[in-house]
């Protein structure tokens, strides 16, 4: 039973990842290309400034894969496998939740678990540390940024689980509606405190030392020794669109995952409920009827 649920979860996740990839290929790749053009233009301007100041230019990173491979294959593999991993975790949570979270139907539970995954794994961490296109993010701070992002993901998931548990506890005393509202409020307050305590990326010590106090690592205009702007800051519209499409792609991924999984799970559970056994017994009973 669990194995069947997990296989269906992986399948639904792959479908979600595939659609999110198609979405990304159409909407995100042009933006990623623009961000990379910005980065190479900025590097060239920086190199010119360094040369004028008599400094040695920085060595560029070698390209292990061409842009075509990254933009057509790499992003597809990444998103489909991400979808499958999320689908597997989704199915694990779904199997644990079955029958333990009140009178939810099989399909409604699927959509709620998908909503939880979208919030816990992506949207809540995004509020504190949003997705960034290439050219935003200093190589020196990758370890801090990686750790902070994972802390944010872990906190949002853990607190979401606690909120569900709290809501269940409060349900008997306060009723479903009030218990749900109170648990959601508690989640918002505690995750808000976590976000307030964690540092902004621009305030990491390596960044403050080099650039002064800023909220983010988004590149500011590049200036020469006289303070004249020689290269603009990162284009705001490109940044907004990239983040907007990033949220949309995750909505597609989790939405498709839930919508594909829901009917499959319902059929599986209905079959099992009808016989009280596993699916194999049902198939034996059903197949003669299909022939008739």
């Amino acid at each position, binding site marked *: *039973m*669990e*194995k069947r649920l*997990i296989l269906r979860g992986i399948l639904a996740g792959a479908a979600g990842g595939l659609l999110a990839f198609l979405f*990304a290929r159409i909407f*995100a790749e042009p933006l*990623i290309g623009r961000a990379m053009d910005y980065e190479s233009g900025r590097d060239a301007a920086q190199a010119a400034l360094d040369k004028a100041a008599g400094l040695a230019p920085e060595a560029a990173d070698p*390209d*292990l*894969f061409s842009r075509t491979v*990254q933009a057509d294959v*790499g992003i*597809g*593999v*990444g*998103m489909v*496998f*991400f979808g*499958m*991993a*999320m689908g*597997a*975790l989704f*199915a*694990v949570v779904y*199997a*644990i939740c*079955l*029958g*333990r979270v009140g*009178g939810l*139907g*099989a399909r409604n*539970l699927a959509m709620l678990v998908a909503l939880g995954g979208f919030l816990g794994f*992506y949207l809540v*961490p*995004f509020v504190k*540390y949003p*997705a*960034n296109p*290439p050219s935003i*993010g200093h*190589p020196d701070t*990758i*370890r801090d940024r*990686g750790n902070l*992002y*994972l802390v944010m993901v872990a906190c949002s998931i853990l607190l979401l689980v606690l909120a569900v548990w709290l809501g269940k506890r409060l349900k008997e005393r306060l009723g479903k509606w009030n218990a749900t509202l109170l648990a959601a409020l508690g989640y918002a307050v505690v995750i808000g405190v976590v976000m307030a305590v964690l540092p902004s990326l621009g305030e990491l010590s390596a960044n403050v030392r080099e650039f002064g106090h800023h909220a983010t690592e988004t590149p500011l205009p590049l200036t020469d020794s006289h303070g004249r702007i020689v290269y603009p800051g990162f284009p705001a519209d490109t940044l907004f669109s990239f983040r907007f499409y*990033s949220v949309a*792609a*995750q909505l597609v991924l989790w939405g498709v995952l839930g919508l594909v999984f829901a009917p499959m799970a*319902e*059929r599986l*559970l209905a*079959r*099992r*409920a*009808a016989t009280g056994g596993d699916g194999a017994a049902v198939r034996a009973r*059903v197949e003669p*009827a299909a022939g008739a």
Partner: protein
Amino acid sequence: MSSLSAPGATPAATPLVLPAAKAALLLAGTAVVALAVYYFIGVDQGAYSVFGNDMHVHEFVHDARHFLGFPCH
């Protein structure tokens, strides 16, 4: 198709509880593998690296990593 859905005409309002203790190993194993995939797509060869100084995984899934919201570079 119709014959398959026939037994499910009256789906249980509350799905049955699975014996999670019996399936704990399968569920935990699945979760570990899924988290490993999450790690390799999102984190490896960035903040941490299992293959030392190599950057092939990072560069291959580079665009996905940015777009899925992970920190990069």
